[in-house]
C-alpha cells in the first residue's frame, strides 16, 4: 500500500489519526404516487414543517450548550426562519394546488429559492443557498419518514470523509466518535468550517471530489487541520511523527487552558497581574482565551488610521464598549491616541518634521486639538460605565502636561453628567513611562498619576538614542541594556515609594529572559501579546520573590547588555535542568 498525501484548505486546526468513515448524503428519492386532495397534501407539509421546527430547536440547544454561546446556534435560528418563510409556504402551496405531490413540491420550491440566492454576486449571500437546501432536505426527509442522518450509523471513532457537510450534519457530529472531517467541497467561511473551529474539531475542506472518490471506509488516515493535509494509508514513520505533534499540541493546549484558569503568582504566592496588549475586539477575545487577567494596553490608533475622517464619538463608543464587554470586570487600561508624523492619518494635517519621534505626537498633538481629544475621552467615559476601566496618556514628560490632560478628562466627565448621559466617574488616570524624563520624575508625576506603565520600546529608543527603525543602528537597540534596566528600576522604586503601582506594556514584559529581573524589581503588572501569557504565567510561578531579587541584583551588577543576556540564558537553562 502506498501512502497518498492530499492538500486542501486548512479549515480548523488540530490533528486526527484514525480510520475513514465515508459518509454519503442519504439519497432522498421522491416517490411516484397519485396526489391526494390538495388540503391533505398541504396538511402533510404543515406537519413536516412542525417536526422540522422541533428538530431545529433541539439542534440549536445542542450547539449552544457545546459552544458556550448563541453565535453559532444562530445558524439554526436562521434555518427556522427559512422554514417559516412565507415564500416557501407560498411556493409549496401553489405547486400542490397544481396537483403536484408534497414531496416534489418541497424539493422544487427549495431548489428554486436556493438558486435565487446562489445566483447572487456576493459570495457571502450566495453561501446562504446551502442553508435553504439544508432546510429543504430536512423537510423532505421528514416527509419520507427517514431518521435525522446517516451519520448516526457511525460507531467507532473515525475521520469523516464526505462530499460536503451541512451545518446540521456538523452540529450532530458526536465529539467522541468524530475525530475530524475532510470534505471535497466547502471553503473557509462555510458554516461547517466555522462550526468545526468552534467545536474544536479538526477539519480540512475543499480537497476536490476526485481526490476523495477512491477512498474507502476503514482506510487509515492522518489529517492535519492546521496545514490542510490529509495522508491516506500513512507509513509507520508518518504515524509516529503525527502522534508526537498531536501530543505536543495537546500538552500546549492543556497548559493554555490551565493558565487561563489560574492567577499568576510567584513561587511564594505573591500575586502579580498578567495582562494583554490588544487592539480590536477580536484581540480582546483572544486575550481572554489565553488567560489574560486584564488589558494592560488597549491601543486606539487603529480607529483613526486607515479612515477617511476622524471617528465620531458614537462610533468610538460602540467599539470601546464591545471590547469592554468582552473583558467583563477585568481591568482595562485604554491609551489615548498615540500617533505622530511618522504615520499620520490622511485626514490630519501633520507638518513635515525633521524628527517625528521627537516632534508633535501623542499627548502633545491631542492637547493642541482639544475637540479631537475630548471626543475620544467622552467616548471612553461613556463606554466605561459599569466596567473597570483606566485611562492612560502616552508621551508625558512633565507634571503640567499631565495636570492639563487630567483637566480635559474632568471637563468631558462634567459635560456628560450635565447632558445626563451615563458614564464612568472617578476613572483612574495614569501615564506611560516611555521617556527618560518621566522615569526620572516619577515621584513628581505620582502627585497626579494613579498608576504608571512602562513602554519599554520607546523607553529603550529614547534612553539609548537609538532609532529602532534604522538598520545601521538596530544592533544597538538593546532593551536589556543596563541603562534601560536602571531606568525601569528607578521608575518602579519611585512609584512604590509614593504608593503607586507600576505595570509594563512593552515587549520586554513578555520576554522570558526579562521576566525574572522585572519580578525581582517588584513590577506589579506584566502586559504582553496574548500568546505569550501562558508561558509567562508559568515562568512567574517558578520564581520566589527572594530568588527573583537575587537574579535582579546580579543582572544589575553586570556591565553590558550582552553580559546580562548571557547571564539570563544561564538562569533559564537552570530551570529546565
Amino acid at each position, binding site marked *: 500500500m502506498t501512502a497518498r498525501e492530499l492538500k486542501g484548505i486548512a479549515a480548523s486546526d488540530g490533528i486526527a489519526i484514525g480510520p475513514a468513515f465515508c459518509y454519503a448524503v442519504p439519497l432522498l428519492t421522491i416517490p411516484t404516487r397519485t396526489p391526494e386532495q390538495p388540503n391533505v397534501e398541504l396538511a402533510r407539509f404543515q406537519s413536516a414543517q412542525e417536526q422540522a421546527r422541533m428538530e431545529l430547536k433541539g439542534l440549536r440547544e445542542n450547539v449552544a450548550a457545546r459552544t458556550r454561546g448563541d453565535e453559532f446556534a444562530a445558524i439554526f435560528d436562521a434555518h427556522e426562519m427559512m422554514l417559516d418563510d412565507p415564500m416557501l409556504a407560498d411556493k409549496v402551496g401553489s405547486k400542490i394546488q397544481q396537483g403536484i405531490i408534497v414531496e416534489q413540491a418541497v424539493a422544487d420550491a427549495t431548489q428554486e429559492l436556493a438558486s435565487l440566492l446562489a445566483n447572487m*454576486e456576493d459570495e457571502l*449571500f450566495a453561501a446562504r443557498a446551502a442553508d435553504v437546501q439544508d432546510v429543504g432536505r430536512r423537510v423532505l426527509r421528514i416527509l419520507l419518514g427517514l431518521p435525522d442522518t446517516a451519520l448516526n450509523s457511525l460507531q467507532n471513532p473515525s475521520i469523516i470523509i464526505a462530499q460536503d457537510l451541512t451545518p446540521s450534519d456538523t452540529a450532530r457530529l458526536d465529539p467522541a466518535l468524530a475525530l475530524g472531517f475532510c470534505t471535497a467541497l466547502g471553503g473557509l467561511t462555510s458554516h461547517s468550517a466555522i462550526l468545526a473551529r468552534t467545536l474544536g474539531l479538526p477539519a480540512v475542506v475543499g480537497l476536490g471530489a476526485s481526490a476523495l472518490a477512491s477512498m474507502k471506509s476503514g482506510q487509515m488516515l492522518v489529517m492535519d487541520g492546521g496545514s490542510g493535509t490529509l495522508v491516506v494509508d500513512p507509513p509507520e514513520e508518518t504515524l509516529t511523527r503525527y502522534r508526537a505533534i498531536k501530543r505536543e499540541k495537546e500538552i500546549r493546549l492543556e497548559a493554555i487552558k490551565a493558565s487561563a484558569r489560574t492567577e499568576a503568582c510567584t513561587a511564594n504566592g505573591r500575586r502579580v497581574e498578567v495582562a494583554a496588549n490588544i487592539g480590536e475586539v477580536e484581540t480582546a477575545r483572544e486575550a481572554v482565551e489565553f488567560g489574560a487577567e486584564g488589558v494592560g494596553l488597549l491601543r486606539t490608533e487603529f480607529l483613526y488610521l486607515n479612515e477617511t475622517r476622524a471617528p465620531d464619538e*458614537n462610533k468610538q463608543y460602540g467599539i470601546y464598549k464591545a471590547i469592554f464587554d468582552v473583558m467583563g470586570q477585568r481591568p482595562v487600561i485604554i491609551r489615548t491616541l498615540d500617533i505622530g508624523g511618522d504615520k499620520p492619518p490622511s485626514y490630519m494635517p501633520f507638518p513635515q518634521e525633521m524628527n517625528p519621534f521627537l516632534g508633535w505626537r501623542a499627548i502633545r498633538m491631542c492637547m493642541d486639538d482639544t475637540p479631537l481629544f475630548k471626543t475620544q475621552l467622552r467616548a471612553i467615559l461613556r463606554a466605561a460605565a459599569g466596567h473597570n476601566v483606566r485611562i492612560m496618556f502616552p508621551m508625558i514628560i512633565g507634571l503640567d502636561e499631565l495636570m492639563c490632560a487630567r483637566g480635559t478628562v474632568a471637563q468631558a466627565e462634567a459635560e456628560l453628567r450635565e447632558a445626563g448621559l451615563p458614564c464612568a466617574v472617578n476613572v483612574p488616570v495614569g501615564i506611560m513611562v516611555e521617556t527618560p524624563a518621566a522615569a526620572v520624575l516619577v515621584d513628581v508625576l505620582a502627585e497626579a498619576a494613579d498608576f504608571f506603565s512602562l513602554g519599554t520600546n520607546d523607553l529603550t529608543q529614547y534612553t539609548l538614542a537609538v532609532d529602532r527603525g534604522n538598520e545601521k543602528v538596530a544592533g544597538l537597540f538593546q532593551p536589556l541594556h543596563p541603562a534601560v534596566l536602571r531606568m525601569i528600576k528607578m521608575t518602579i522604586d519611585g512609584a512604590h515609594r509614593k504608593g503607586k503601582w507600576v505595570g509594563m506594556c512593552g515587549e520586554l514584559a513578555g520576554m522570558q529572559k526579562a521576566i525574572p529581573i522585572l519580578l525581582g524589581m517588584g513590577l506589579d503588572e506584566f502586559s504582553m501579546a496574548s500568546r505569550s501569557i501562558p508561558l509567562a504565567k508559568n515562568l512567574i510561578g517558578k520564581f520566589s520573590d527572594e530568588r527573583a531579587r537575587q537574579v535582579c541584583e546580579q543582572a544589575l551588577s553586570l556591565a553590558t547588555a550582552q553580559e546580562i543576556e548571557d547571564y539570563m540564558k544561564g538562569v533559564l537553562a537552570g530551570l529546565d535542568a
Partner: protein
Amino acid sequence: MIESKFTVTHKVGLHARPASLFVKQANKFTSRISVRNLTSGEEPVDAKSIISVLTLGVMQNHEILITAEGADEEVAVQALGELVKSNFGEA
C-alpha cells in the same frame, strides 16, 4: 401607506444577524411591509421573508426604502427604521 429611507451602516449589511433581526421585527406587525434596495435598484420584496431580504444583497452603506401598508404601518416603519439606525443594537 408610509415609507421611509434608511442607510444600513452595519458592516455585514442585511445579512446574518441583522437580516434575522430585521425579518423578526417585521413579522411583529400585521401591515404588509416591503423593502427595497435603492442602491442596487432591485424590485421591492416582502420584508417578512428572510430569503427575500437576503436576495436584496444589501451591503454596508446601501440605502433601503421601507414601505408599510396596514393598521400599524406607522409604528412598523418607525420600529424597523430604529433597528437599522441603531446599527442592529451593536452601537
